[in-house]
């Protein structure tokens, strides 16, 4: 087989790094969720707090879906992973649209709170994770491990 066709049959075995990245972001998202909900609650009231919680759940599920799709398809073939990422992008956007469309007329929804929380959570978690990943890649020796954490 020619080298240019290799991605069609190549597959990546072993642990999926995107799943661990996604798990990190979900953990951090759950960690900061009370703060975001409280801030939205102060600004927009109870509706804002509930909408903020809904938006955080949307963002975290979106990350988990993206990572799961990539990890599953990378074990089959790289070409399938590319297709799954592109189709998954459209499907996830449609799912987010449906999730918001279903609740848009609900009594507890506050669209400004929902929108603001989606953007802040998505970008905030990404920047937080990027900082961690870039530090780990630049200084691999300083990457905390379970063993060093336990000894400290």
């Amino acid at each position, binding site marked *: 087989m020619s080298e240019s066709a290799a*991605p069609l049959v190549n597959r990546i075995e072993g642990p999926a790094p*995107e799943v661990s990245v996604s798990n990190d972001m979900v953990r951090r998202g759950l960690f900061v969720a009370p703060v975001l909900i409280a801030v939205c609650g102060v600004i927009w009231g109870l509706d804002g707090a509930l909408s903020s919680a809904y938006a955080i759940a949307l963002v975290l599920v979106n990350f988990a879906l993206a990572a799961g799709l990539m990890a599953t398809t990378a074990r089959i073939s790289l070409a399938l992973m*590319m297709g799954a990422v592109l189709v998954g992008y459209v499907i996830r956007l449609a799912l987010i649209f449906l999730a918001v469309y279903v609740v848009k007329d609900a009594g507890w929804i506050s669209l400004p709170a929902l929108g603001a929380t989606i953007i802040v959570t998505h970008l905030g978690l990404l920047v937080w994770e990027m900082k961690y990943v870039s530090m780990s890649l630049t200084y691999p020796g300083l990457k905390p491990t379970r063993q060093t954490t336990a000894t400290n």
Partner: protein
Amino acid sequence: MEALSYLIAAVPLDAAEQKTANAAIGAGFAYGLAAIGPGIGIGYVVGKAIEAMARQPEAAGMVRTTMFLGIAFTEALALIGFVVFILLGL
């Protein structure tokens, strides 16, 4: 196009309805246009990442990590468009 203009002319709208219709059309364009750019960007990111993984499989872990972050950052643009859409005219 001619049929569309007849249709539009046949349904007169008052000012409030016209404003609502314009907001809906603007929101739809905002979301649609905001989704095109990230779609192209994600395709570019994933294509280059797969090329890198095929050339250098031992670096696949690092490439996949940065690819995932790149995809998520690119997708943020679509989400911003979506938020504009829901605030304007959902």
